[in-house]
């Protein structure tokens, strides 16, 4: 008995130890094989979103790999922007981050300032292939962090106004759409039919709120990110406008997590005549309109005192602390992905903005704009394009602001000024 016990114990120990040994050996030899196999430098690229956008990423990476034999890029899908960001951070902490990844533009600051992404300025200065002037200036705002370039514009967007032109014509309105807040209000009123349809259905979207604050000529945060400014005149006026339209029942504002999906659904079913959403959804919305038998038109976000629309989407960034060999490979890949031909391909495939001026002027894009003019609205609107705030706490501030805006819309007695002041009071300590 005693011997059997001793034997089992030894056996267990041997098994445990040999299992550990095996593991280490296994991973080690795999790594060796991978790099020995092909004389190419291997890098990994992480992207967000599936469907058309995912296909676009996979296709471009395949084209890049086929176009040369020095670098081999492996593309990996990582979910939405939120998932992509948290996975990248976790991977960086584990020293296992992809060489190239995407930053949603409002997150450029967090990643750059915490030393996760590489400063691209030296690469650009030492590379005569890159002409910075050719990037659309309206999209460059979020590339700079503290004076240095940390990312190049890749899949970029801006919110625009989508309209059911068939309903507009029925109501006797100009299908070109409203220009300013006053016309926007008239359109909403004319398009609301009791019990049938509402002028517009929208979520409590901070991205759209940014456009309304921009229309009042102000910003969400002070230029040095020291405090919030969304509770200034422009912000209060914007929320008062939303609240008044919502109370009249001509603008339906959904709270909650599926609000954006709900707005899309209302628009597709003809229960609302207009909606705000990203230009990235244009291809999809054209298909929805065709399926449901209505005409779709697009227009600028309505202006007030002025126009100032946020841009959106993601920039391509390089992970910090790579070996010179990997850095060069990553840089070649980023440069190729943001070049004229590729930005034309991506824009046509998805509806995202072409990020280069030469791409917009190209024959290919111009003939697309002639054929489907809806594609051009977002490009033209870019002259009013603004960078998104890049403070580290902005994701949390957005959540606080959305909560207080929702509260003000739900509680008749809570004035927009008080709601925004409350949000500012909660948000300001996060900026210090």
């Amino acid at each position, binding site marked *: 008995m*005693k011997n059997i016990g*001793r034997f089992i114990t030894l056996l267990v120990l041997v098994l445990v130890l040999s299992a550990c040994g095996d593991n280490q050996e296994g991973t080690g030899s795999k790594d060796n094989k991978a790099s020995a196999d092909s004389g190419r430098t291997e890098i990994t690229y992480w992207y967000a979103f599936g469907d058309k956008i995912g296909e676009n990423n996979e296709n471009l990476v395949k084209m890049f790999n086929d176009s040369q034999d020095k670098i081999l890029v492996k593309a990996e899908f990582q979910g939405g922007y*939120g998932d992509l960001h948290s996975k990248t951070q976790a991977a960086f*902490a584990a020293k296992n981050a992809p060489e190239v990844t995407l930053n949603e533009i409002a997150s450029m600051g*967090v990643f750059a300032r915490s030393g*996760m992404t590489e400063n691209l300025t030296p690469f650009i200065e030492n590379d005569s292939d890159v002409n910075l002037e050719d990037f659309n200036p309206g999209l460059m705002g979020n590339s700079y962090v503290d004076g240095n370039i940390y990312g190049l514009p890749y899949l970029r967007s801006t919110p625009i106004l989508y309209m059911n032109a068939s309903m507009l014509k029925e109501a006797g309105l100009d299908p070109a759409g409203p220009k300013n807040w006053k016309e926007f209000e008239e359109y909403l009123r004319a398009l609301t039919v009791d019990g049938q349809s509402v002028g517009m259905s929208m979520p409590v979207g901070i991205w759209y709120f940014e456009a309304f604050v921009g229309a009042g000529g102000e910003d969400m945060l002070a230029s040095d990110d020291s405090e919030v400014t969304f509770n200034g005149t422009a912000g209060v006026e914007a929320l008062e406008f939303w609240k008044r339209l919502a109370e009249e029942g001509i603008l339906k504002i959904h709270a909650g*997590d*599926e609000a954006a999906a*709900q707005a899309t659904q209302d628009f597709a079913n003809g*229960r609302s005549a207009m909606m705000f959403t990203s230009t990235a959804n244009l291809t999809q919305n054209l298909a929805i309109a065709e399926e449901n038998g209505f005409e779709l038109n697009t227009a600028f976000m309505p202006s007030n005192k002025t126009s100032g629309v946020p841009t959106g989407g993601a920039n391509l960034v390089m992970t910090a602390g790579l070996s010179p060999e990997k850095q060069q490979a990553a840089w070649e890949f980023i440069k190729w992905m943001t070049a004229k031909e590729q930005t034309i391909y991506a824009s046509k495939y998805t509806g995202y903005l072409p990020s280069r001026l030469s791409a917009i002027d190209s024959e290919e894009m111009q003939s697309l704009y002639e054929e489907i003019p809806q594609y051009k609205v977002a490009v033209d609107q870019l002259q009013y394009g603004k960078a998104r705030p890049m403070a580290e706490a902005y994701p949390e501030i957005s959540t606080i602001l959305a909560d207080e805006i929702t509260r003000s819309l739900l509680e008749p007695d809570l004035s927009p000024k008080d709601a925004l002041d409350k949000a500012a009071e909660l948000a300001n300590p996060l900026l210090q």
Partner: protein
Amino acid sequence: MTLANSNETLHRKREQSALSALNWVAVRPYMMIFPAIIVFTLFFLYPIGYMIYLSFHDWNFVSPDKDYVGFSNFTALLQDAKFQQVLRNTFMYSFATVSLTISISLLLALWLNKKGAMYGFVQGAIFSPHIISLVSISMLWMWIMDTDYGLLNWFLNLFGISNIPWLTDPKTSLLSLIIVAVWKGIGYYTLIFIAGLQSIPKDIYEAAALDDTSKVRTFFKLTLPMLSPTLFFLTIIGLIGSFQVFETISIMTKGGPINSTNTIVYYIYENGFRFFKIGYASTAGVILLLVVGVFTIIYFKLLSRKVHYQS
């Protein structure tokens, strides 16, 4: 003399081998559980220790330095109005979910504790949600509870009840999540209750029937006390489980609208992985550990005395 000598040697030898056997007997259990201890330390103790360490630091998950901030995460968290609401939500969710699930499934178990094809079918039907992934259930209920296009409001409309914004109104959103949790939990609880009911000896009931005891009295004086181990077990795992609710919230509401459905685990996730405040999130994790720990201890110490265990 020689005999005595050899006897002594023999005795000493025996003693020695007894000693080594004793050593071996004392060491062997530790050797046996050694692999388990390693796993436990690596995957349970170390993460808990690291979480406690992080709760005293300010860290954004990637920066190389973690700033030591003492207890300031704790004081900030306890003064945070949002966290107070999160705690209220969590307690309300847990108590409502557990008490509703237990009372409904106890009634169902009493009804279903019979032989017959129909009872088997009903039991199978109410158990089926338990084997479906929570993610699928959340997606399904998002559609059922949709304000304008959902099945639930369509059904209520038939009775002249106007549309209820289940998930989009802060007044009803937590209730909606409780409904989903109860719907999912009932099948499993009922199954355990039926097993509990069937293990009660039949002769007690015969004795009660001979004495002409009423059904209600039989239930409260016999069934309930005999069922108390099951009840105790389900309450504990129910409370501990619902304190840690995450999937339904992450998919159906993201804690909103206006934080009305934000609970501790979602709050930890939100701070850690969306706002990158790892220290702050770890502090909330320590609080969760304390709350769950205290509840477990209270239940084992107090309630176990009142539970009737069959010998």
